């Protein structure tokens, strides 16, 4: 079929229409994603209200410095992704692939730090639910903090992995020359998704690490 070779689909009235649809669809999906996290944020708010001091104390067992580095990595990667969109609009395929590659490296570094932090928690027994056993934090509520911590950061990490897969696919597409100055819808919507994952972290970070 002819539609296989051309990226333009004939049920749209034109490229602009298709691009509009793709972006709108992505925005709606992002809205849906926000609500996925909302549940956990609500759970966090409720239990923080129940156990304010325990939560503040449990938060001190997290590695705030590393999280700061993670935040920087993510913000920088978002910058690279924004650059990728900028480059592909001008048809610079190699540059696009290069900055996307840089974003991927930063994203992987983020996950590596996260994994190391999880390992540290494992050593200290700061695990969710019934696996929680820490000598310093014995009060009711500390286990809930770590349950929510693992749920929030875990869900975020899963989103990171999906987004990294998406970026890899975009690099491959940019190298293969699929995206041009005219057709770059996947780069735009893929970029949107990356930014959203970034924004989630910007909410998770202060809530979990910087509570007083």
């Amino acid at each position: 079929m002819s539609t296989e070779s051309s990226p333009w689909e004939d049920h749209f009235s034109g490229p602009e229409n298709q691009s509009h649809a793709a972006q709108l669809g992505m925005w709606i999906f992002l809205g849906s994603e926000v609500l996925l996290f909302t549940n956990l944020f609500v759970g966090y708010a409720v239990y923080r209200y129940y156990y304010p001091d325990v939560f503040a104390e449990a938060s001190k067992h997290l590695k705030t410095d590393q999280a700061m580095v993670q935040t920087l990595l993510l913000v920088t990667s978002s910058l690279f992704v924004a650059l990728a969109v900028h480059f592909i609009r001008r048809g610079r395929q190699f540059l696009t692939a290069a900055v996307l590659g840089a974003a991927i490296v930063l994203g992987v570094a983020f996950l590596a730090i996260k994994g190391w932090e999880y390992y540290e928690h494992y050593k200290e027994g700061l695990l969710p639910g019934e696996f929680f056993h820490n000598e310093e934090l014995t009060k009711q509520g500390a286990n809930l903090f770590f349950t929510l911590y693992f749920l929030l950061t875990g869900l975020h990490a899963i989103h990171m992995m999906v987004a990294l897969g998406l970026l890899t696919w975009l690099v491959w597409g940019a190298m293969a020359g699929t995206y041009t100055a005219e057709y770059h819808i996947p780069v735009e919507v893929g970029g949107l998704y990356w930014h959203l994952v970034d924004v989630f972290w910007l909410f998770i970070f202060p809530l979990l690490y910087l509570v007083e």
Partner: protein
Amino acid sequence: MNPSAESSQPAITYLNHETTVKSWLLTHDHKRIGVMFLVGVILSLLLGGVFAMALRLELLTPGPTIMSPLTYNRMFTLHGVTMVWLFMIPAIPSAFGNFVVPIMLGAKDVAFPRLNLASFYIYLTGSLLTVSGMLWSGADTGWTFYTPYSTVSPTALTPVLLGVFIIGFSTIITGVNFITTTHTLRAPGMHWTRIPLFVWTIYGTSVIQVVATPVLGMVLLLVFIERVVGAGIFDPSRGGDPVLFQHMFWFYSHPAVYIMVLPAMGVISEVVCAFSRKNIFGYKMIAASTFGIAFVGFFSWGHHMFVSGQSTFTSGIFGVLSMLVAIFTAIKIFNWVATLYGGSIDLRVPLLYVLGFIFLLMFGGMTGVAVATTSLDVHWHDTYFVVAHFHYIMVGAVLMAFLAALHYWWPKMSGRLYPERWSFLAAVTIIFGFIVTFLPQFLLGNMGMPRRYYEYPQEMQWLHVASTAGASLLAFGFVLIAIYLLWSLRYGPVSPPNPWGSRGYEWFSGSPPAPHNFTQAPRFEREVHDYTVPEAPRVY
């Protein structure tokens, strides 16, 4: 415009241009995906119906009748899960919405055809997982999965939770698709004020799906995690709060009622116009009330929790907001009835279902107002009164609309007519059977029969027997429908492109439609359901 409209019925249709199995399973055509969804939801309806009949048979006597208490508990859980997530939520939006919405907008397809197909397979995977959980050892928590019971239940709840979680993704994708389609793929001349009301309701439904479903997904995931690692979020012995689950669950599940009911209301708005040959009485009122319901629906979840220990003030707020939903529903009912005024009414089967719908919705709605009146709800909460109330809304209304849509769009989808007399008989049987089934349940609720009871006091028996008798009538009606529709697929008379003389935009395409809906660009020069001129619309 075109007197020989019937001759322009396309020779190549979406049904006959490709006929291999692969061409169906890998299709991107919204019509074929709609048909596949239709098959899926009808099978689910059958499954849920079998569970329902088993429940009714068990309740024939106050003690054990045909099954053990554990089997009974599984049966009502699976009845609820199947009917809510496998049948009712996808029934009208995913099946009929997929088929009709793009045609109504004059589009060739939905915005994201591949996602649309993915949505179907995600639905299939989730359904199979849910059904496998049933075969495993069933789930016995009720479809509401209330914690802490759901975290300790010994049954195979896990696959059911995962299955419903996966189906959620299908719902979200379909929602995203419809919203985008409505925004970007309207034919030239299709202003926002001209969009058919069915599309408006599907749009409203999609918004609810996109906003509410992730919340459900997350809360089911939390129960899942609770069962696997004992997370403690809903477990009081670990410092959690079991009532938090109810808040999160009803934040989705109350709007979910409107995911089911809004598209049904859309169908009614179309069918009323087509068979009374009239424009809708208050187009803007109905469209606006759709969004009113969608919006207020998000702020009334607490009326499921009047006796859960939430504060009196909170209950009051939720009670008032719940009343508003009833107002928006009342607006629609008044407008539908007013549409009949001055029309040219042909009482065919779809219109008969519409009358059934209005009647059942009146009762369901008024009893809804009664249960939103906080003091009365204390007696009725978790009794058969509530069961009867939501069956009037969800089964009565949604099923009536589903059947109305099935009959109204049957020629459009299959290109065949169904036998008029048999369908009339089936419709009367179903409406009558429905009333006989659920009217006694209101009275049972008044007597104080709690829901999910395996055994019950002796004096309630005759009402249960009446209810079971009604259910048998219902089942008989469904068997009748299944027989004549299957018959019609093969032997039914070939339908003209517009057998009802309807001026709905979906009838601007052939019956069945061409592979890309229209053979030439359609022009929507008149408002939808404009019957001021004698000619039927031409077929593009």
